[in-house]
Structure formats: structure tokens, C-alpha cells
């Protein structure tokens, strides 16, 4: 059995495990049982392990420099979000966060499954360790922002429940406001520098590879916009002392804005990143 075939099997197992854990998380929210969310966390951890091995196979299998397939790229997104979530989850024990983040992970997996296996993503002239660092760090940074926004969304829900003076089952299932605010803060604090280094790696590579014209590329402009938005959010938090509800609201709004902008750039404009 070749490594590609083995990788395919591992991807399929990870896909099924992701589907099961997403269903488990959502069901736990529906029937308000934390035990189910705990089980789903372990299932997601297993999916993460399979995905890790799958990605390792892809790296070993690729000839020469870092050479991602389009499926691997989306798997890497799912892997990164789940990795960041699991790391945070084991630290903060806020399992219900999974109900919000696992659908995002599963969506990445569906998108990855829709891609042709083995199709090379990056043109040969873009394959270098700098693009590898750029891809890896940017995805990790974005994953942290996704998590910050999910925590923000949960904060808004919990805040609404507590303001309405209802200590419902849902409220009991969701983490405390303080914990959610802390997750939002940790994700911003780590996400921003990681994204910054990722963007910087991309910039250095672009300067050497494309030399001119890349600064006006729509995707790069939006990436800068996102970088500035998250940077200003972190600034507001650290310098001005924004926290709690306002921070949650702005994080969510920033995420929705960047998500929509990514979609519009992806489908409406021609960019230097068209291969993604």
C-alpha cells in the first residue's frame, strides 16, 4: 500500500470522526448534557491525530520543497483550528465551545473532501520554505481568530441569558463570562503575532518572487485590513481596557466582515492567490 493510499484512508477516518464529534457536540447542546461534549472532545482529539499523520504523510510524500495539495491545504486549516481548540480546551475545560467550533472544522473537512487528492496547489515557482511558513503561520493565526470569535459569540449568548435573569440549562452548559472573555483575550494575544509573522513571511517572499504589483492585490489588501482590525482590537483591549461584551461583539463583527470579504475576493476578483 502506498503512502498516498494510506493517507487517503487516514483522511477518511478523520472525516468520519469529525462528523461524529460535530454531531456529538451539537447534540450535547441540544439535550444539555456535558458528558456528550466530553466524549466528542475525545473523538475530535482522535480525528486530530489521524489528520496529523495524514499531513505528515503528505509532507513526506511531496518531492523537494514544501509542496501542498489543495486537499492538504484545507485539511491543514481543519487541523489547525482543531489543534488550537483542543490545546485551549484542555487548558480551560470549556467543552461547550466545541459545539461552536466543530461545525467550522467539519466545513473545512467537507471542503477538503471535495478537492481532488494529490492536485498540487502551489505553482512550482512559489514552492519555498518561506511560503510554507507563510501558509502555516497565517492559517494558525486565522484559526486563533476563529476561536476568539466563537468565544465572543458564546459570550454574547451567555450575556443575553444572564441579563434576562434566566439561569437556564443552556446558561449552565455555557462557560462563565469571565472564561469566555479570557479565551477571547488569549486567542487575540497569540493570534496577532502569529499572523503578523505569517504575513511578514509572505511579504518577504512576494518581494523576492513577484517584486512589484503584489501590494495592490485584493487578497493582500484584505489580509492587511484583517491584520489591522485584529491589531486594533488587541490595542483596545491592552491599552484602552476594552473587555467583556464590547470585545465579544467587535470580535464577532470583525470575523463576519473578514469572512464575507474573503468570500467576495475569492469569487469576484482575480488575485495573485488564485491557486487557493
Amino acid at each position, binding site marked *: 500500500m502506498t503512502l498516498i493510499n494510506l493517507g487517503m484512508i487516514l483522511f477518511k477516518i478523520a472525516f468520519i470522526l469529525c462528523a461524529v464529534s460535530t454531531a456529538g457536540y451539537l447534540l450535547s447542546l441540544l439535550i444539555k448534557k456535558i458528558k456528550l461534549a466530553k466524549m466528542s472532545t475525545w473523538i475530535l482529539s482522535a480525528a486530530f491525530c489521524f489528520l496529523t499523520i495524514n499531513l505528515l504523510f503528505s509532507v513526506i510524500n511531496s518531492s523537494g520543497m514544501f509542496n501542498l495539495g489543495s486537499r492538504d491545504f484545507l485539511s491543514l486549516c481543519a487541523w489547525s483550528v482543531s489543534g488550537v481548540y483542543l490545546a485551549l480546551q484542555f487548558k480551560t475545560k470549556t467543552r461547550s465551545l466545541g459545539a461552536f467550533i466543530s461545525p467550522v472544522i467539519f466545513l473545512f473537512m467537507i471542503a477538503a473532501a471535495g478537492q481532488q487528492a494529490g492536485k498540487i496547489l502551489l505553482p512550482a515557482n512559489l514552492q519555498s520554505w518561506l511560503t510554507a511558513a507563510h501558509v502555516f503561520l497565517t492559517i494558525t493565526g486565522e484559526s486563533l481568530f476563529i476561536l476568539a470569535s466563537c468565544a465572543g459569540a458564546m459570550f454574547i449568548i451567555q450575556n443575553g441569558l*444572564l441579563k434576562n435573569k434566566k*439561569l437556564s440549562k443552556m446558561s449552565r452548559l455555557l462557560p462563565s*463570562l*469571565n*472564561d469566555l*472573555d479570557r479565551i477571547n483575550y488569549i486567542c487575540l494575544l497569540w493570534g496577532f503575532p502569529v499572523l503578523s509573522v505569517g504575513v511578514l513571511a509572505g511579504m518577504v517572499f512576494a518581494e523576492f518572487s513577484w517584486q512589484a504589483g503584489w501590494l495592490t492585490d485584493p487578497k493582500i489588501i484584505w489580509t492587511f485590513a484583517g491584520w489591522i482590525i485584529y491589531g486594533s482590537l488587541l490595542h483596545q483591549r491592552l491599552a484602552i*481596557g476594552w*473587555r*467583556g461584551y464590547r470585545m465579544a461583539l467587535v470580535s464577532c463583527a470583525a470575523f463576519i466582515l473578514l469572512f464575507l470579504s474573503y468570500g467576495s475576493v475569492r469569487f469576484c476578483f482575480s488575485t495573485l492567490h488564485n491557486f487557493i
Partner: protein
Amino acid sequence: MIVLVGLNHKTASIAVREKIFAGCQQEKDILARLRSLNGVGEVLYLSTCNRIEIIASVEEHGKAVIALRDFVAASGGVTPNEAACCFYEYRNEEAVRHIFRVASSLDSMVMGETQVLGQVKDAYRQALAQYATGVVLNRLMHCSFRAAKRVRTETAIAVNPVSVSYAAVELAKKIFGSLDGKKILLIGAGEMAELTGMHLISNGAESIIVANRTLAQAGLLAEKFHGEAVSLDSLDAKLIEADIVISSTGAPDFIVTADILKSIHHRRKNRLLFLIDIAMPRDIEPSASSLENVYLYNIDDLQDIVDENMNVRRKEAVRAEMIVEEEVTRYINWQKELESVPTIISLRSKTEEIIKAEMEKAVGWMQNFNKEDQERIDNLVNSIVNKVLHSPVAVLKEESAEFSSRDIVDAVRRLFRLDG
């Protein structure tokens, strides 16, 4: 036979309960004295804040119950006539069900409270230490602990708080997660505020500041918590420090207004603020609730949460009763099995005696055989007898687990003339 004699908050006034409680406390070696009563075998004495109960394994129901009741009544100086209307008594299945319900907190004043199981365990520990229990009560108590554990883990009967102060603690945890390092500001020195503050401190809150119109009274309360006492003039400054504010003054106007909170919002660095207003008339302006990161609950809001939680407990109690019923059936089945045990033992010893006697008679002619053949004959006899006995013993065990085994036990005893 198991009997239970006792009195609780539903059957006896606090005055009677107090007298009996004090009387029983003064009795030296109460368990030994109870065991010395006529017909009482095993015994356990349970005393909680609102009940006194004696559980005993007795030979005969009537006399033993009267003896137990009169003993407890006499200890408290209550006349038998007075005692007759205060005491309840249960026997066998009813007694088992009652003690299971008590241990599971289904019979408590506040249904689902967790303290009672500890008290039942303590009572059992004492009885064990004094060798007052035997096979029947030991099994009964272990089964009651299992029933209580199942009720707690399989139902949500003890999950949600049913007192205003605990509801406040739960809310604080939903806002802050951990209460470690949180500062509490008590405005006014009311009893309810003090109790809530105490619960918050025992759940990890760091310190208490007491603000009161009269500094001396604030000082008295602050001393209890090793906290800080301030006058109402420095309230604004203390609101900046506080994370949880409990207000219970008798002031006719609002003491904490939305404007005050708005003005200190920045200096508080937008930290989350939990306001509990248990004063009547209210101390905190209701519109403060709409401020960002401010969570205001008044006494009615807290009471609504408590009522809702109580409803949940009532619903869960139906499931809890079913669990208790399952455990009662399990225990009763075991007890019925126990009824057939002496008969099985008698049957076996009688057959052994017969074999022994017949083998002794056969010693003369068996001498002609060698030792090996003698052993073979011995084994053959035992094997035949065991096979013959297998069915009656199995039926005795099976029948006793299903329904009352008394008839079949009687039949076996008569058929095999076990009673001589």
C-alpha cells in the same frame, strides 16, 4: 423483621423534637440500651436537624415498637400519650422504603439537600463501632447508600440551588467562573447579605468590604469576615474595587445609581460587576442592569431562580422515587432469600447426620472392601444425596427471590421434619 420508629418536622413540633433530641443526647450508650430492650436484635439511631429515628431488626413487631417508642419518649420526658401522636412507625418494606427516601433526601425539609446522607452515614458508623448492627441492618444501610448515590448521580435533584444565597453564588460563578481573588462589597449589614457574603467567601472570594451608614455596625460585621469597614461616603471608591456588590440597606432611595456606575466604568477598567440587591425598597437603580458588563439581580429575580430550581427538583423527585422503588425491591428480594437460608442449612445438616449415622452402621460389612472402594462408596452416597437435594434447594432460593417464601419454607420443614 425491620422496624422504624421516629418523629420529624412533619409529625412533631420543634418543642417536642428539642426535648427528645436533648434527652437522647444525654443518654449514655443509647445503642446498647436500645439493644437491651426486649425483642430488639440490631439497632441504629439516626438524629438529624429535623428528625430522630430508630431503625431496628426485631423478632416480633408489636412489643418491640412500643418498647422503642416508649424508651425514646421517656428519654425526652414526653408522656406515652403525647408521644403516640408524634411518632410514626414503619415495618418491613415500608421501613426500608422510608430509610432509603431519607438517605436520598426525598423526605427532607429541603428536598435534594446533601447533608442528610452524611448524617445517615455517621449514624451507621457509630452503630458499627458499637457492634449494634448485624447482617440485616448492615445490608440495609449499604443499600440505602447505594440508593442515595444513584439518586444523586442519575437525577438532577441536587444540582440546582434552592436557597437565595446559593443561587447568588451560582450566578457569581456563571459570571466570574472561579471566585478566587474576587472582592465583595456589602452595603448595609443585613442578615441575608451577611449569609450570602459568607457563602461567597467559602466559595473562594478573597475579601469583604462592609459599607454602612454607621461605621461602628459596619466594623462589627467586617470583623467577622476579617474585612474592611467603611462609611457610605466612600462608597464610590469601594465600588471601583469590588467585583460583587450585595446591597441590603433600609434606605428609601437608590444608593447605587446608574450614573454612579457609569462614572466609575472607566476606572473599573470595564471589569464585570455582579450586583445583588436584596433590599426592600431597592437600593440599586434598576436601569443599571442595561449597562455593559453589569449584571443586576434583585430579591425577586433570585427567588424566581430558586422557584424554578425547586420545580426542577420536584420533577426529578418522580424519577428519584422510581430509583428508590427499584432499590427497595432489590433489598426485599435479598431479605426473602435470607428467610430460606436457615432452612437450607438445616436441610443440609440433617442429611449429613443421616449419612454419618448410616455409614457408621455399615462399618461392619464395609471392612471387607479395600480403602479405595470404601472411599468410592462414600463419594457415591454423597453425590446421590447432593443430587436429590439440588432441586429443593434451588427451588427454595428461586421462590424466595420472587415472592414470599414462607409457604414453601414451611412445606420443606414439614416434609423433612426439620423442626424435630
